[in-house]
């Protein structure tokens, strides 16, 4: 990567942040609060204290993993829009097996995560099969599977998975000993974020440095050439589908293990969709996507604080990721047009 592209990336990032800040200020004004107070509350809520940083990191885990999952799919030319559904599938698997497994906490955690990853990968398989055998665009099938997953969660927490000791639509809690402990006192952050970051690093290395990664990228960049050259294109696509689904499933499993401890309805605040946005912002690069995911998580943590302290509706801050992604995509499209 040359210096020009780093400079232009910085310029794009600065412009995008400026636009996002402007959006936030006007939203604060609309809600009748002082923009400065709102901004301070937002920043303090995102990173102003150990608790705030912990909150941001706790929220990051799921977003980082779904973002990296999206990257793995995108780079292989698979448009997996179903990360939300795969995230839910992972969470369901974790909530289903977690409370009942015997063994040491470490072994149980591993088993729960394995179940979550497998469930995420399994949830993407119908889409992969339909695409390979029937030519159904995966964009459509994965979105539809999201709706199925959300409905399934809603049904399960009122049926098979409902906590017998409570009337709420929620599953039985995982034993406290199995759940990830906080990294530091008074913080919600757990080792889950480290798991997510390690997986990010692993995915980045596989994509950019391994023979498999080169084959996946070639398949994504030029599908017909990949086929003609003699790459096993359909197997590689299936692998990308499954890896992407497994990462999103792991995100769901870690969310249950480290944050919520159980499944309830509605379970997800759109982790799969925010992960997609982070992958777009990171242009399919796992490291950049993970950084974007952490940025979005900090915005989420900050906006909750902003709502508490200034009354500016926190939902307004969820506009910011959208504005950011659109600004960056527009700037990239412009940069792409001036190239040779």
């Amino acid at each position, binding site marked *: 990567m040359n210096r020009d592209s780093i400079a232009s990336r910085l310029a794009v990032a600065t412009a995008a942040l400026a636009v996002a800040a402007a959006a936030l200020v006007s939203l604060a004004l609309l809600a009748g609060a002082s923009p400065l107070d709102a901004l301070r509350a937002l920043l303090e809520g995102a990173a102003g204290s150990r608790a705030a940083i912990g909150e941001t990191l706790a929220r990051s885990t799921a977003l980082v993993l779904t973002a990296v999952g999206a990257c793995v799919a995108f780079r292989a030319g698979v448009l997996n829009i179903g990360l939300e559904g795969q995230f839910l599938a992972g969470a369901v698997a974790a909530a289903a097996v977690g409370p009942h497994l015997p063994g040491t906490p470490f072994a149980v955690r591993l088993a729960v995560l394995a179940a979550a990853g497998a469930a995420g990968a399994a949830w993407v398989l119908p889409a992969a099969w339909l695409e390979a055998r029937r030519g159904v665009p995966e964009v459509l099938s994965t979105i539809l599977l999201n709706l199925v997953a959300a409905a399934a969660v809603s049904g399960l927490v009122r049926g098979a998975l409902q906590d017998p000791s409570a009337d709420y639509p929620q599953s039985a809690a995982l034993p406290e000993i199995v759940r990830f402990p906080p990294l530091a006192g008074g913080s919600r952050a757990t080792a889950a974020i480290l798991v997510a970051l390690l997986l990010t690093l692993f995915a980045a290395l596989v994509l950019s*440095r391994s023979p498999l990664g080169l084959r996946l990228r*070639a398949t994504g960049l*030029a599908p017909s050439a*990949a086929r*003609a*050259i003699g790459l096993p294109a359909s197997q590689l696509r299936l692998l990308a589908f499954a890896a992407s689904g497994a990462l999103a499933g792991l995100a769901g499993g870690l969310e249950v293990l480290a944050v919520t401890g159980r499944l309830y309805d509605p379970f997800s605040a759109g982790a799969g969709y925010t992960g997609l946005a982070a992958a777009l912002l990171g242009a399919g690069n796992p490291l950049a996507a993970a950084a974007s995911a952490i940025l979005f998580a900090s915005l989420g943590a900050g906006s909750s604080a902003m709502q508490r302290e200034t009354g500016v509706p926190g939902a307004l801050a969820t506009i910011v990721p959208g504005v950011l992604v659109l600004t960056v995509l527009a700037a990239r499209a412009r940069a792409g047009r001036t190239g040779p």
Partner: protein
Amino acid sequence: MSESIGHGPSGSLGPPPSEPSEQSSSFYPALELRGISKRFGETQALSEAALVVLPGEIHALLGENGAGKSTLVAIASGRLTADSGEILRRGRLVSFRGARDARDAGLALVPQHDLLIGAANVGDNLAFLDPRAPFFESAAARRGRVSRMSEAFTLDLGDAGARVDTLPVGTRQRIEIAGALSGDPEVLILDEPTAVLAPDETAALFASLRKRADAGGAIVVITHRLAEVFAGADRLTLLARGKTVRACRTSETTAAEIGGLLIAGAEEGEGRSGKETIPLEAEKGGSALNGARLAVTDFAPRGSQGRQISLSLSSGEMLVLLAIDGNGADDLARAIAGLESFEGRVSLDGRDLPRDGDPLAFRAAGGAFVPADRREEGLVAALSLSENLALPDPPGRMFLDRRAMLSHARARLSALGVRTSSPAASAGSLSGGNQQKLVLARELARPARVLVAVHPTRGLDLASAAAVRARIHEACAQGAAALVVTADPDEARLFDAPIRVVFRGTVSGEYPPGTPPSALGRLMAGVAP
């Protein structure tokens, strides 16, 4: 046929908006490019190149692969902007912000690779290309335009209702040419228009270009075929390494001189002095013992009726299939490579290949394939040269062995004479000819048992084409059976191997490489010689 190019039967295509060439208003060139420079990353594509095109002439633009021809016409037609230099139309300085500006100024480009919409039919594509097409138009009117243009430009545009992505590349190029002419440009630039045309179509194209020039239009044709230049062009400009090295009337020079300059330019650029050594006769030893290396029995593309092709090749044998695109030779090649399903039998070393199309089975049996569409099927434009050359099985276990990839790339690139700044450059940044060499470099990196090459020398300069032919002969000498598909009778003869002509799904008997091109041309058109 009798219509001149400027006068379509509908009257919608008026004569070119220019005066006859000898008039005083035409004192200025129709198009003049002065001191054009353009750099892509580390590659200086053009340095101070110049081009002067007069009204009423057919002007040939020549140069080896990577000389900057395509870049120069892309600048002239507003698709790229020059780093420095001036563009003058009829003596007036102009600047283009896009292809549309250039088109409004009377400049149209027929690109080397068509930019048609594959999912739309012929009638719709021509409607999109025709600047005078009304916003709302009936399907019948669009069909009418196709037959009108087909007649006016004497180009076979195929069925108006056919989806463009189902058409052979030759037909697609003719559609693009018709689209460019529909804007009635004064200066028409064609980037290697004849590379995909059959001989009689080439003659027809030059005839209609001549009519257009006679009516005052200016025409620039990029080509590698010197015979065409001296038969059809008035003047020529020769580019080498981004500079204009010769500009003169064709009557002032000879094909031998220009051919010499072209090869000199190519060799200087590649730092090579020696000529390519071409093995005269491929070794045919052992073929009787081994049986057929490649055997095709009663072949027909899936879903086609009746017509069948059978042929067989032994180790070390080469066969040239000569056909106009769309007659079945390209289908056969793609089917052997596992990219299309078929009826009948195709076997490598006696083992049948699956009929449903499986590129992996073809590769596993020792097959190598050079596709017709190198940009779409031959390489991954966004990846680097060394990454392209490492596919499909990159070296390394956990991590890519970048060092092995680089040294492999350097060896392969220098063996094929690919001119590039570095193996880290992207494959898409190479010129068309160098891309073709890159594909061959990858396919011939390991000994092939069967090599199927479709138009392997299309669009290549003389030196590169000779190098490519030499590599294919080498592969044969090492035991491969080679099946070469081409649409150019002159080129077919140069392979110095038996020629069989494919016409409408059937294959002729063998003709010796010495068969006159005119006879081959008649066979390609389905006329008995």
